[in-house]
C-alpha cells in the first residue's frame, strides 16, 4: 500500500523519444491488424465451427442412447444422408425457379410503364406467403390431382409450393432494391446518353444486388424450413425423420431430425451470407 502512494521518482520517468513513439504506434497498428484478422477469422469460421460442434454433440449424444430396433433402423447414415440430399435438392430447385420468376417480375413491376400494376403483383406475392405453407401444399396437392398431366406427389408439387411460398421476399426485395437506387444517379446515367436498358444493366441492377440477395437469403432459409413438410406429399427430406420420431415417440429420432434441419438452415444462411458479401459491389 505504502509504496503505491509514494510519488514516482522523476528519474524513473521514461519520456519516450519520437522513434519509440513511432515504434509503439507501429506495434499498435500491427496489433490492430492482428485483431482485425482474428475478428474476420471468427466471423468466417465461427459459424461452421459451431455447426460442426453441434453435429458432433448430437452424434455423441445419440451414441450414449440405447437405441431400439426402430431407432436403429431410422438413424442410419445412409438414411439421413439421403434425406439431407433430398432436402437440399428441394431447396435449391425451388430457389432457382423462384429467382427465375420473381426477379424478372420485380424488374418489370418497377418499370415506369408497368408501375401501376405493382400493387397487384405485390398482392400476388403476399397471397403466396399469407396462406400457411401446409395449406398451400395441400391445395396444390388437390389441384394437381385433378390434372392428370401433373404429378400430385413427389418433388414437383413440393417445388411448386415452395416457389409460391418464397416468391414474396424475393419479389419485394427486387422491387425495393431497384426503387432505392438514387434517382439522381439514374438521371445522370440517362443524361449522359445511356439507353434505358443500359441504365438497368449497368446501374440499377448492380446497385440493387445487395437488397435482392438479402431477399434470396431469406427465401433460402424459408425454403429449408418449409421443405421439412415435403415428406407429406412424397417429396422426402428430413421431415420424414422428424415425423417418424414424433409419431413413434422416439425422442432421439425426433431430435436428430430437428437438429439436422436447424443445422442445414443455419449453414444455408451462412453460405448465402458469404455469397452476398462476394457479390455486393465494392464501392457500396
Amino acid at each position, binding site marked *: 500500500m505504502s509504496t503505491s502512494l509514494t510519488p514516482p521518482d522523476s528519474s524513473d520517468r521514461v519520456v519516450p523519444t519520437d522513434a519509440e513513439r513511432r515504434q509503439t504506434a507501429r506495434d499498435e497498428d500491427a496489433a490492430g491488424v492482428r485483431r482485425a484478422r482474428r475478428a474476420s477469422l471468427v466471423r468466417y469460421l465461427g459459424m461452421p465451427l459451431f455447426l460442426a460442434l453441434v453435429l458432433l454433440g448430437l452424434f455423441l449424444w445419440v451414441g450414449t442412447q440405447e437405441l431400439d430396433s426402430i431407432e436403429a433402423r431410422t438413424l442410419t447414415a445412409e438414411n439421413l444422408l439421403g434425406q439431407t440430399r433430398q432436402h437440399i435438392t428441394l431447396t435449391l430447385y425451388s430457389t432457382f425457379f423462384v429467382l427465375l420468376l420473381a426477379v424478372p417480375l420485380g424488374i418489370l413491376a418497377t418499370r415506369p410503364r408497368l408501375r401501376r400494376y405493382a400493387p397487384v403483383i405485390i398482392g400476388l406475392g403476399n397471397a403466396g406467403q399469407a396462406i400457411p405453407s401446409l395449406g398451400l401444399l395441400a391445395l396444390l396437392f388437390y389441384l394437381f390431382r385433378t390434372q392428370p398431366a401433373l404429378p400430385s406427389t413427389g418433388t414437383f408439387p413440393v417445388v411448386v409450393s415452395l416457389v409460391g411460398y418464397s416468391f414474396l421476399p424475393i419479389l419485394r426485395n427486387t422491387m425495393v432494391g431497384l426503387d432505392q437506387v*438514387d434517382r439522381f444517379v439514374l438521371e445522370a446515367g440517362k443524361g449522359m446518353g445511356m439507353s434505358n436498358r443500359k441504365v438497368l444493366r449497368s446501374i440499377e441492377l448492380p446497385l440493387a444486388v445487395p437488397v435482392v440477395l438479402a431477399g434470396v437469403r431469406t427465401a433460402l432459409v424459408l425454403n429449408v424450413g418449409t421443405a421439412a413438410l415435403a415428406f407429406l406429399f412424397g417429396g422426402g427430406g428430413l421431415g420424414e425423420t422428424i415425423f417418424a420420431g414424433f409419431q413413434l415417440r422416439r425422442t432421439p429420432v425426433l431430435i436428430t431430425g430437428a437438429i439436422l434441419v436447424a443445422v442445414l438452415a443455419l449453414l444455408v444462411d451462412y453460405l448465402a451470407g458469404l455469397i452476398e458479401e462476394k457479390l455486393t459491389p465494392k464501392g457500396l
Partner: protein
Amino acid sequence: MSDQTNGDPLARLGTDAETGETMIELQELTKRFPGQETPAVDRLSLSIPKGEIVVFVGPSGCGKTTSLKMINRIIEPSSGHIIIDGEDVTDIDPNHLRRRIGYVIQQIGLFPHIRIAENVATVPHLLGWDKDRTRERVDELLDVVGLPPEQYRERFPKELSGGQRQRVGVARALAADPPVLLMDEPFGAIDPITRTRLQNEFLRLQTELQKTICFVTHDIDEAIKMGDRIAILQEGSRVAQFATPEEILTHPANDFVEDFVGTGATLKRLKLTRVKEVEPTEALTGRVDEDRETLRQRFDASDWTAMLLLDRENKPLRWLRGPDLRQQDRPLEKAGVRTRALVEPQATLSDALEEMLLGAAGVAIVVDRRGAYRGLLDIDAIITTIQTMKDAQAEYYRAAKLADPEDEVPA
C-alpha cells in the same frame, strides 16, 4: 489569390462571342405537365451564343431547371424546337443527343459502385472508344479538374469529399469533349468556401475550353459571377431580362429584375460586412451612479427622446424617457424599458438587422466582448451601407466589362 484573378470577370474578356454565332437556339419551347393547368415553361425562346456561359436564374418554381432539362430532353418538351449548332434536335434519338451534351447536376449522381476512372469514362464507353484512348482521356481530365489521376483513378465515389465528387462530375461531363454543357446548380450542395474555389477553377477552365454552357442557379451572386449573360426568369420561364450581368445590375429591365437582383444580392452582402466596419453613432448616456437631477438636466438639454442608462461597468441597463427621469418614486434601475438588440462588433450587419427586427427597435446597441457599451447602430446606417455596397458592386462589374474597350459594343 491566383484563383481570384483567374476567376475575375476581367480574365474572361476577349473570349466572349467573338464570332457572334448561336450555338443553342430555343424556339417557343413549352412544357405542360399532365394535370397542371399552367405550363411549367411557357413559350421560351432564347439564343445562346457559342462559347458563352448563359445562366438561367430565377426564384424557385420559375421553370429554370425544367427549361434546362428540355435541352437534352431529360424532360421532353410539349411543343417548340431545340436547335443545336444549326441542327434541329427536337426529334432525334435522345440517347445520341445526350452523348454530345455534357450534363452536371447538383446531386452529382456519380455511380457509387464503380471507380472514379470508370465514372469519368462513361460516355467514352458509350461511344465505343478503345481502352488506351479512354484511359488517356480520363487521366487528362482528372488532371484538369485538379485530382491527380494516380491518386484518385482507383477510388470509389464514397471515398471522396463533396467538392471532389463534383470535380469528378465535371470531368465526367467533359469526357467526350462535348461542345455544349448543361449545369444544373452544380455547386449548390457544396460548402461556401469550396464552392468559391470550384467556381473560380471552372471559370479558368472555361477560358481554355470555350464550351457553350447553360447554367442554372437560384443564386444571383453566382449568376453574376459565372454568367457572360444572364437570363432572369419569371414564372413559366418567361424571360424578364436577358443581358450581361453589368447591364442587369445597372439597368434592370423591370421591377421584378430589380427586386430579384436587389434582395438576394444585398442581403448576402450584409452577411459579409461586420458591425465594427460601420461607424457607430453616439447615444445620450447616463450612469446609475450619477445623480438623477444631473441626468435630467442633460436629457433636457439634448434633443434625444430617450437616454441609455448604463450600470457601473458601462453595461446597458434601461432606456429612459423624460417622465422616467422626472418621477422620483422608482429607482432608476427599474424605470423605463429594458434594453434590447445588443450586438457585438464581430456580428454581421445581417445579425444586427435581425436583432433590430426581433427587438422591434430602430437601433442596435453595440457592446464589446464584456458587454460594455460602445455605441449605437441605427437602421439608417445599415441602409447607407447597403447603398454604398450596391454602388460599388455596379462599379466593379462595369469596370470589369469596360476594361477592354474592344469588347464594348457601342450603344
